[in-house]
């Protein structure tokens, strides 16, 4: 009201530029608003600090470690015996190969089942059914991994693998860990694939139906290829979850480094090594203590690359439609 009075007053003659004055909405500086915005930005910046913190945490012991062990010995060495007091060996290959063998088994379970569930939810289920089924499926991702580990040890290995399928597997083995891990990441694969397939325009489906295709042909030959990059991103994200999962592989795959491609044997994955060794008493700064961070750094680097691929794939598919 005051501003209005002022402007009418200035048009009557006294103000030098009164007639040209326009309403300025953004000009007034508001210190309170700026302060609040700064506080909020600081909170958002915590995520950047977290990443920087992770990198520093991992790099300092890693540099220290590589001043004692040759990087080549670490990356291509085939024996992992960090606790050997006479002749410790730091070849990380057994841990990496165990992680990847278990991950491959997990993907063999999760990719077909996850995609099947996603195809049903996206192409066949009515909206009402989908609303009920999707949260039920996502419950699988809500079960703690230590519970899955117990399940693998107490049910999958003794009852399913040894009794039901009469396979010759050890008490701890990569197969059981991989199978259970696969079940755990089904929702990750299914949920994101379903999003990708639901984003395919209806016109593509209608075109296919109009040419006389049934729903199976439409799903497999039209919707699936159209959503492929989104589906690939879902699989890659599931892969990253599997590589980083700890408790299942610690409990079910065992804690003995073992360079082997035989899934019926026990073997120690990278995360399992970190979990088991951290529980022991290792003096801070010792080479064994540093191996925790070196393996952690390798794990972080692997998941970072995988995540970047996944993000790039999602970006691509969002641009298409």
């Amino acid at each position, binding site marked *: 009201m005051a501003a209005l009075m002022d402007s009418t007053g200035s048009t009557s003659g006294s103000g030098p530029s009164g007639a040209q004055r326009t309403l300025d909405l953004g000009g007034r500086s508001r210190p309170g*608003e700026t302060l609040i915005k700064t506080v*909020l*930005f600081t*909170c*958002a910046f*915590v*995520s950047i600090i*977290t*990443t920087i*913190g*992770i990198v520093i*945490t*991992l790099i300092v012991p890693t540099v220290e470690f590589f001043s004692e062990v040759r990087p080549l010995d670490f990356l291509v060495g085939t024996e992992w015996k960090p606790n050997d007091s006479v002749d410790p060996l730091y070849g990380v290959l057994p841990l990496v190969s165990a992680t990847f063998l278990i991950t491959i088994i997990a993907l063999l379970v999760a990719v077909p*089942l996850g*995609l*099947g569930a996603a*195809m*049903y939810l996206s192409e*066949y289920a009515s909206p009402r059914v989908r609303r009920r089924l999707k949260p039920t499926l996502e*419950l*699988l991702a*809500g*079960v*703690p*991994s*230590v*519970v899955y580990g*117990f*399940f693998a040890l*107490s*049910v999958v290995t003794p009852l399913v693998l040894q009794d039901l399928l009469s396979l010759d597997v050890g008490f701890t083995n990569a197969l059981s860990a991989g199978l259970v891990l696969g*079940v755990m990441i*089904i*929702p990750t694969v299914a949920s994101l694939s379903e999003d990708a397939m639901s984003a395919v325009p209806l016109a593509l*489906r209608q075109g296919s*139906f*109009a040419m*006389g*295709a*049934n*729903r*199976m*042909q*439409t799903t497999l030959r039209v919707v699936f290829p159209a959503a492929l990059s989104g589906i690939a991103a879902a699989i890659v994200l599931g892969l*990253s979850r599997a*590589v*980083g*999962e*700890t*408790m299942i592989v610690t*409990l079910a795959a065992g804690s003995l480094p073992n360079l082997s491609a035989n899934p019926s044997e026990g073997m120690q994955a990278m*995360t399992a090594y970190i*979990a088991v060794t*951290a529980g022991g008493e290792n003096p*801070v700064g010792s080479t064994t203590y540093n191996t925790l961070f070196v393996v952690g750094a390798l*794990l*972080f680097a692997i*998941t970072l690359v995988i*995540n970047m691929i996944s*993000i790039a794939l999602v970006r691509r598919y969002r641009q298409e439609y």
Partner: protein
Amino acid sequence: MSTPVIPDRANVAARTARETVQATGRGRDRTPGSLVFLGALWFSLFFGVMVLMLLIVSTALDGAGRFDGALLTNYFSRVRPEETGFRAGILGSMWLMLGTATLAVPIGIASALYLEEFADRHRWYNRLIELNLQNLAAVPSVVYGLLAVATMALLGFQVTGIVLGGAIALALLILPVIIITTREALRAVPSEIRFGSLALGATVWQTTWRQTLPAAVPGIATGTILGLSRAIGEAAPLLLLGVAVGVRFDPNGFLSAFTALPMQIYNMTSQPQAEFQTAAAAAIIVLLVMILGMNTLAIVIRNKFQKTW
């Protein structure tokens, strides 16, 4: 002046034509190949659910002998495994959730408000924050454990296995989840509400605090509870912090030594005595009930309070 109601013939004809001609593919769904395919889809959908049922039933049977009061009220006992209880673990997990929520919820909501309501999306640093968040969401939980160990050393704590250490690790772990779900909740609030408030002369912050945020509270609460339900089952970061297992006292603050339910479950699973296996199975059911309770609460909040505009 009244116009006679004439059925729009052209329109009706067009609609009829559309309805009769539109193909759904359902007519040809009964070929053998299609039926096999549909069966495979059904199988993949229900396989996970069947595994979940098997998991719950077999664990409940394993732990059947231990669903007694002592399970909840006794402390860990190495000498009498048949009477071991999870009092310290249950209370420890509750303290841990309190600490995690205290750290993660304000920071998470503030970050989401900044990114949705204030940030200029074309600035490189805001884009960096977004990309960084997507990455953090998929960092393995053991790595957060390593980070928490280093953070505790930086803060000057000799013993890392205290509630604060666990809360730092879990808060950092679920921060991306809280931020992402809060942003989705904020995005679901229609822009018209913001424009109306701004047009009446409110500042951006007044609009956010009095209009957008209250409207998004149910969605934020749902996301936060789901994030916490993920945190309560985490054992890996606690393992790295050296959280104790045989704790025989109640934790009494954020600086108190403690143990958590998943840690005790992990430890007892690795013990040879059958009594500990039974106790672990019973404790798993307790943990699952807690998680299921949190999930149910989240779904109830979502269904009861969430508005659709």
